[in-house]
């Protein structure tokens, strides 16, 4: 079956999910992002690639970091940016997503960055939109958050360039996490030999091991000798019922403390996609500590999103 993200000749047309993308395309994005990192250090932090194009940020779900970094990325590519606060717009008056999108296409929008609480929303738009428009998934339900997955592997690659010799652990709420799914696909596609997930049984999807990961329920065993620790946010807003006894209990078992960090390799890096729940999944001393690369993740997020947008815009 033709991957809906690719053109007939195999180029990236939309970015909807990392799943199913060939390694060569992931590497192209990461290598291009490498070239964009330096742009932020110049006097003029812009390149003219998307001059005359209009990028439309459509966030049907709250976000600060992702929306802002997409906006900065588009502006550094010289695009015009529309930020749609969909909660207060015509969606609230009953307009369908496709009508909203097609109205924006009529205003000559060229690219849509979509976040939605429903899995598959970006995919749905991509399937029904005019062929010259590009769609980027900025998070859909529990499904995927591909640019976050990409910026995470970009950060890993910057600190640990030998991806073929790494042990990576994802810790926390894998069940509700679109970030975890995107990270797992990105890491395994790029050839990371050992990806672990560490979580209580109630916060793991069924058959998660089919994604090519090793499952641990004991954090101390799971963190032993890992090179990279990717913490996940406890998504209490997506939880219903008794998945956890309490936040305190969770921190005791699955919170990252200095003591538990000591079980990983001495030069291990700590990552978190944000927003952090300090004292729930991560201790402040670790989040602000010398092994934390949480803020560099945010900075690299801009370069990675610039890379994705410029590659898509060029594949018309």
């Amino acid at each position, binding site marked *: 079956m033709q991957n809906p993200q690719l053109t007939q000749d195999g*180029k990236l047309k939309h970015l909807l999910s990392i799943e199913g993308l060939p390694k060569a395309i992931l590497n*192209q994005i990461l*290598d*291009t992002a*490498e*070239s*964009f*990192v*330096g*742009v932020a250090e*110049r*006097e*003029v932090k*812009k*390149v*003219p*690639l998307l001059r005359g194009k209009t990028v439309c940020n459509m966030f049907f779900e709250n976000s600060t970091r992702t929306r802002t970094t997409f906006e900065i990325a588009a502006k550094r590519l010289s695009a015009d940016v529309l930020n749609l606060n969909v909660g207060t717009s015509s969606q609230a008056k009953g307009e369908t997503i496709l009508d909203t999108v097609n109205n924006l296409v009529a205003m000559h929008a060229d690219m849509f960055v979509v976040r939605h609480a429903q899995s598959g929303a970006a995919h749905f738009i991509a399937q029904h939109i005019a062929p010259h428009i590009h769609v980027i998934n900025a998070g859909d339900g529990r499904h995927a958050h591909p640019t976050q997955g990409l910026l995470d592997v970009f950060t890993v690659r910057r600190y640990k360039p030998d991806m073929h010799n790494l042990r990576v652990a994802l810790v926390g709420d894998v069940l509700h996490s679109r970030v975890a799914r995107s990270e797992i696909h990105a890491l395994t596609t790029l050839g990371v030999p050992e990806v672990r997930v560490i979580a209580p049984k109630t916060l793991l999807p069924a058959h998660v091991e089919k994604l090519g990961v090793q499952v641990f329920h004991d954090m101390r065993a799971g963190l032993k000798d890992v090179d990279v620790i990717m913490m996940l946010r406890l998504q209490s807003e997506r939880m219903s019922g008794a998945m956890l006894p309490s936040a305190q209990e969770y921190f005791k078992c699955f919170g990252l403390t200095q003591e538990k960090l000591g079980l990983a390799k001495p030069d291990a890096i700590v990552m978190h996609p944000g927003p952090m729940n300090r004292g729930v999944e991560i201790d402040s001393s670790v989040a602000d500590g010398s092994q934390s690369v949480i803020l560099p993740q945010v900075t690299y997020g801009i370069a990675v999103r610039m890379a994705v947008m*410029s*590659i898509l*815009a*060029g*594949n*018309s």
Partner: protein
Amino acid sequence: MKLPDAEALLKILAEKLKPLVNANKPADTALVGIHSGGAWLTERLLPMLGQKKLQHGMLDVSFYRDDFASRGLHKENRPSQIPFDVRDKHIIIIDDVFYTGRTIRAAMNELFDYGRPASITLAVLVNRGGRELPITPQIAALDMNLAPDQNLQLLRHEDGRFYLTLEKNA
């Protein structure tokens, strides 16, 4: 057609560059090679020019090309490296083959995003003819007049020595 010896042209280019490099204080002058051939040439030229203080950098103009809309982003792009302050510098852009002038236009646009240079000079190994913009090299080790369907390229042997190839475009 017998192609000129690229190594001999390199020596000519170095000789032609010397007066220019010595015209200003070495600290005020910088060589900027265009990826990839121009960057290779810059590497070889630096020790030949006899100025140890000469600063240098590399530009990959992928983000400034004028054919982005039709051809998309170049698959292999590298980070540009300008490890000095461009402001008020005399910049000498080095490239291997000068053809339409579009790459140089892109390079100049990119350079100005680093700062306002005092001057920009263009020096190339071969000016093959066929410019499409009001841009031309001040220094060329060799001038040629090639047909549009001919593609002149600078390549490197395994030991690092340069050679030129000429192919007919399909």
